[in-house]
């Protein structure tokens, strides 16, 4: 019985889990190996002597050095960070207020307004980039971070509103009723009682928004043109690929470094993220 159970556990749990995780992580490993592989080893035959396809014999940081020194990568990092932080802040503020109103207040057309905010999440960039390009040009925002800071809320606000609305609904109504009896106004109860309690939900919405704006590609590709203005995803792709020449080592180094902020955010807040998400979807 015990033996059978152990056998089952291997077949149904450990082996599939290992396969999944390996499949998930292999591209990252491959990027990593490429990033620390010297050019001499990168560009030579599969069958060459002393070749090790899945690891490297002479690890080097040369590509990272080149990336930092010869490209505008540090500037791209800063651009991306700046844009992601500001658009996240704007969207969170809007989502927080709108989510609260939709979750807690009774008012005419609540259902219609909630639905319309949610539906905007489904309006894809493919539909929007043409007119937005025109607007950006009209307001002469082209090639500035503001072009992106203004457009990212198109997908950030609906999602954070929805997520936070769900989270607010999991907070017992009595808490703010009690606060209102205790002497707070509706607004006061919201800011002093409900928002502090909703911190896990707010963090998870914030992480989500930050990731989405950090990773965004199409708008950044269309709205930013000069190299020193670009964000990491666009900069790496467009500046390190010249025609048919790929600077593979640097590309991979950039790909790894460019994701560090997001990775950090997740590893610190992953607990909050899951509780926040669970809270939201429950509501």
């Amino acid at each position, binding site marked *: 019985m015990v033996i059978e159970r152990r056998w089952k556990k291997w077949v149904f749990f450990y082996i599939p889990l290992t396969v999944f995780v390996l499949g998930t992580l292999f591209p990252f490993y491959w990027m990593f190996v490429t990033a620390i592989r010297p050019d001499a080893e990168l560009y030579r035959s599969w069958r060459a002597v002393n070749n090790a396809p899945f690891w490297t014999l002479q690890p080097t940081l040369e590509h990272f050095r080149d990336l930092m020194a010869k490209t505008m990568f540090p500037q791209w990092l800063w651009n991306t960070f700046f844009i992601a932080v500001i658009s996240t802040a704007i969207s969170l503020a809007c989502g927080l207020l709108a989510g609260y109103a939709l979750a807690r207040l009774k008012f005419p057309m609540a259902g219609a307004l909630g639905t319309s*905010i949610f539906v905007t999440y489904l309006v894809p960039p493919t539909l929007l980039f*043409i007119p937005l390009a025109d607007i950006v040009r009209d307001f002469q925002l082209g090639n500035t971070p503001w072009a992106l800071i203004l457009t990212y809320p198109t997908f950030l606000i609906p999602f954070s509103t929805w997520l936070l609305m769900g989270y607010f*609904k999991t907070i017992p109504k009595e808490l703010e009723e009690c606060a209102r009896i205790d002497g707070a106004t*509706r607004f006061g109860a919201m800011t002093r009682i409900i928002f502090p309690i909703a911190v896990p939900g707010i963090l998870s919405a914030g992480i989500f928004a930050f990731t989405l704006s950090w990773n965004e*590609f199409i708008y950044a590709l269309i709205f930013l043109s000069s190299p020193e203005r670009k964000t990491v995803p666009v900069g790496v792709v467009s500046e390190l690929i010249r025609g048919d020449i790929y600077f593979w080592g640097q590309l991979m180094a950039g790909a790894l470094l460019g994701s560090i902020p997001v990775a950090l955010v997740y590893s610190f807040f992953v607990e909050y993220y899951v509780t926040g998400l669970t809270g939201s979807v429950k509501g």
Partner: protein
Amino acid sequence: MVSVKPAGRAGDIRLAYALLSPALLLLAVVIAYPVGWEVWTSLTDLSPLKDGSTGFVGLANYRRLLADATFWQAALVTVVYAAVTSAGKLALGLGFALLLARPFRGRALVFLAIFLPWAYPAGVSVIGWYWTLNPPTITAYAPFMGQLKYAVDGTFGIGAWAFASVMLFNIWRGSSFIAVLLLAGINAIPQELFECALLESRSAWRRFRLVTVPLLKPFLALGVFLSLTSAFADLSNVWMLTAGRIVFPVIGTHAYWLVIKAGQYGPASALSLTLVPFLLAVLLVLFRLFDPPQERSTA
């Protein structure tokens, strides 16, 4: 007897609109106005490359589209792309979520690993895939991948390899998100229900089919929904993975090409708007499957 105006209520209504106004205002500027602009433009021959005034051309852009073989090909590719990737994402995502549903040592780490593909900037992780699947000829393992590519292209036609790699990438990335969504769903199901099911039936498959799936239905539906809509409207994944050299255009990339390369705003707008029926169809089907979250706000 004495009918009194509800003071608290009126205050609530004012507060509600005040709280909603920033979000609504911003969305009106960046969504409602652009969509309106786009609908109008799709009826004109607007182009920055063309001098002189913009003319109203009625439904000409749409008529031309419907007669265009490229459009029909792009539409077909889009549908196949959306269907295949959604199925793949859902299957893998559900697998992940079920494996992670019970606590075990190192679960947090595995969770992080599984979430990585989604959290990782697609714009850069896609390069890793490109590098893996389409290596330059001088690279060490290029001959091997080259042979694979020719085998696939030989069997399914030119471009199949590129298309398959886009789908693989999309599934790899998307299943990660679906897994997290479903995991959140599983967490939201009371543990007692699973325990009760354990008493009722010894067959794990029956428990899965009769208890887990029905309880997860809203989350599954939401997953399918987000996955289908994002795939229909996909532009960035396809563009990125093929670095703009698109062999199999989907509707999104086709529209992008029309605007950026050809400057044809009118036809491009019309093309983008042909996505709307797709999106609405998905929306309607899923509205029937589950009450979307915002519907509950009125309860």
